[in-house]
């Protein structure tokens, strides 16, 4: 029944409640005050809300696979098709070197973490605006929203990674013991994605322009990252290390090193990349927390 048809409110007979006896005194005490300037990250509270983080991540994954016809296949199609295009144009036509690895697997090993990063970046940047209704109706640590958006990409990553393993099998490339480091590089991609995502999502609440810049950011970033080409194109070792300021350089070189055993000795790149990623994460988190108080009023 809709409101227009409604005939009226029925007066409910409810007995009036006399003031009840004093209940048990609660141990919880909360003080609400205006905050000024930079505020603490409240990581403990975030931890207390880990179940919500789990449920929101689970919702994002579930809804996406429910709403699309091809469902899980999308996770594979995107990096796979990009790999085909790259192999054709950069590998076959432009004859870009690939550190002695077959070009398709060289580029696909980079596209898998890249897709995870780009998806996380895009989802988290729009996450607050998409959750406007929640922001206005209920309290929870707002950081849960961008974090769950990035996390929801992990399932896609797993699927695309499975294809990578199959491709390696087909090309007869056996993974080495270095594969044990892979989760660390995934974590590095996660950190970068979330760091940037926190900056952009908080800005996006205020300026919807941000939404339109995201495709550009990811596109430029992609070409600034050694996905279609190897970082060994840069011969000067110092310059290569500086190249690591782009944290995704560390992720990609790390992936190739861990899986394909490329001989690019990426240690210094990875150290620089990790530092930048951590810096992005921390600054993003503080900026996010600082802007947080305005979200519900503005979004």
């Amino acid at each position: 029944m809709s409101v227009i048809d409604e005939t009226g409110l029925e007066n409910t007979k409810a007995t009036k409640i006399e003031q009840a006896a004093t209940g048990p005194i609660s141990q919880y005490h909360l003080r609400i005050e205006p905050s000024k300037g930079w505020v603490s990250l409240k990581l403990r509270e975030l931890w207390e809300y880990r179940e919500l983080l789990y449920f929101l991540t689970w919702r994002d994954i579930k809804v996406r696979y429910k709403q699309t016809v091809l469902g899980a296949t999308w996770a594979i199609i995107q990096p796979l098709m990009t790999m085909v295009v790259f192999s054709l144009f950069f590998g076959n036509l432009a004859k870009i070197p690939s550190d002695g690895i077959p070009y398709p697997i060289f580029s696909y090993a980079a596209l898998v973490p890249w897709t995870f990063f780009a998806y996380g970046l895009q989802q988290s940047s729009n996450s607050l605006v998409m959750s406007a209704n929640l922001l206005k109706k209920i309290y929870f640590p707002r950081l849960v929203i961008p974090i769950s958006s990035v996390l929801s990409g992990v399932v896609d990553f797993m699927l695309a990674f499975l294809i990578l393993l199959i491709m390696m099998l087909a090309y007869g490339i056996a993974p080495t013991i270095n594969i044990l480091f892979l989760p660390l590089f995934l974590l590095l991609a996660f950190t970068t994605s979330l760091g940037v995502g926190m900056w952009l999502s908080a800005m996006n609440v205020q300026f919807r322009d941000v939404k339109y810049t995201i495709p550009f950011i990811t596109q430029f970033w992609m070409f600034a990252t050694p996905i279609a080409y190897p970082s060994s194109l840069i011969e000067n070792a110092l310059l290569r290390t500086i190249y690591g300021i782009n944290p995704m350089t560390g992720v990609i070189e790390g992936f190739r090193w861990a899986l394909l055993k490329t001989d690019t000795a990426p240690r210094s790149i990875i150290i620089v990349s990790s530092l930048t990623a951590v810096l992005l994460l921390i600054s993003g988190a503080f900026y996010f927390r600082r802007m947080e108080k305005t979200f519900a009023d503005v979004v």
Partner: protein
Amino acid sequence: MIMGDIAIRIENLGKMYRVGGPQERYHTLRDSLTDIVSAPFKRAQSLLRGQVYGAAGLHEEIWALKDVFFEVKQGEVVGIIGRNGAGKSTLLKILSRITEPTTGSVDIYGRVGALLEVGTGFHPELTGRENIFLSGAILGMSREEIDRKFDEIVDFAGVERFIDTPVKHYSSGMGLRLGFAVAAHLEPEILIVDEVLAVGDAAFQKKCLGKMDEVAGEGRTVLFVSHNMAAVSNLCSRSVLLSAGHLIFDGDSEVTIDHYLNGEQIASALTIFDESDHNDQREALITHLQIRDTHRVEKLTFSIGEPIRLEIGIYSDNAISDPQLGIGVDNALGQRIFTVSTRIQDISLPSIQGSATIVCELPVMMLAPGRYMLKLAFGAHLEDLDVITGIAGFEVLATDYFGSGRLFDARQGVIYVTPTWSFHQNLEIVDEPAQH
């Protein structure tokens, strides 16, 4: 413990919003050009400093809440009343930590559960079962807690048969029931409830009120916002009255309600609705309500029997075909006096795109003197697109309608009736119906 039995202590609470002021006028082309160039930098600068409002170049300040002090004891059930825009929702949003105050502080002793909406966090693609877990987690329940209460929630909502059906296939009533069922099983020490009872049908509202009653009876602290004065006076022993952001009365519910009904002046014949008035669907908006008499003179107070003209502004970006409008008129106690709608009269309006005004001329009505509240619902194809409740509408004055020198008294009922009287010394009792 020194804090004793205080559950909530509010001190000097204030919340300021900045709203768009008049745009600055550019004097010369050069000025505007330099502004175009420098504005993004200014904006970027203020963005980094965290001055979001300054960033958008807005300046007018509005205090939605100012100098508010009050305390709530543990186990107390307190009503918060006031007309739209008085600051009730802002107060609840601060107490539930959705937004931060600009001044002052609140101390809360106890775990807070806020219920500002029914079905918070529901996702239409997910099944009822999945949504119970999702919404429960969003409202602050642990998974173990939801597991334990799951059957009870399903039972309360009465949706056993559809528990594995996506919520998008639910009727709106079922969705509401499920949403409320989840929220009703929250067990916070302090419960904050907004106008959630304004949705749904009478049976649903009865169920909600019953549950509220139960919660209050368990000795938990409840803050309850409503436009339904009957519900407030039934549930709450104490109420506070807000007006234009200030707490203007605090006391026994009956006395506070009296103050509200008698003391509150209806501010203007033109009510422009803001953000907080609308529901969350934004396909179309009811933008304003203008009350006039039939000579199109703006007016708020009418004599008994005087026709009233209501002009309702609608705005929609997309074309809305087959639009419908409903108006409910409640008396000051929240009792529905009558409802009119284009749907029930089967009146078809042309499709609406952009702004439009729908005019409803109410004929001679014999309403008893008093204040009347309006509820507006705009929709299309049996669906509500925007609903606004609790609008302080018009006032009917106790005029000497019959010219008898006597005034109508509220105890005499809610409508005037003017019968035809006659007197007969020896009225014949006729068997046959009178001839026409």
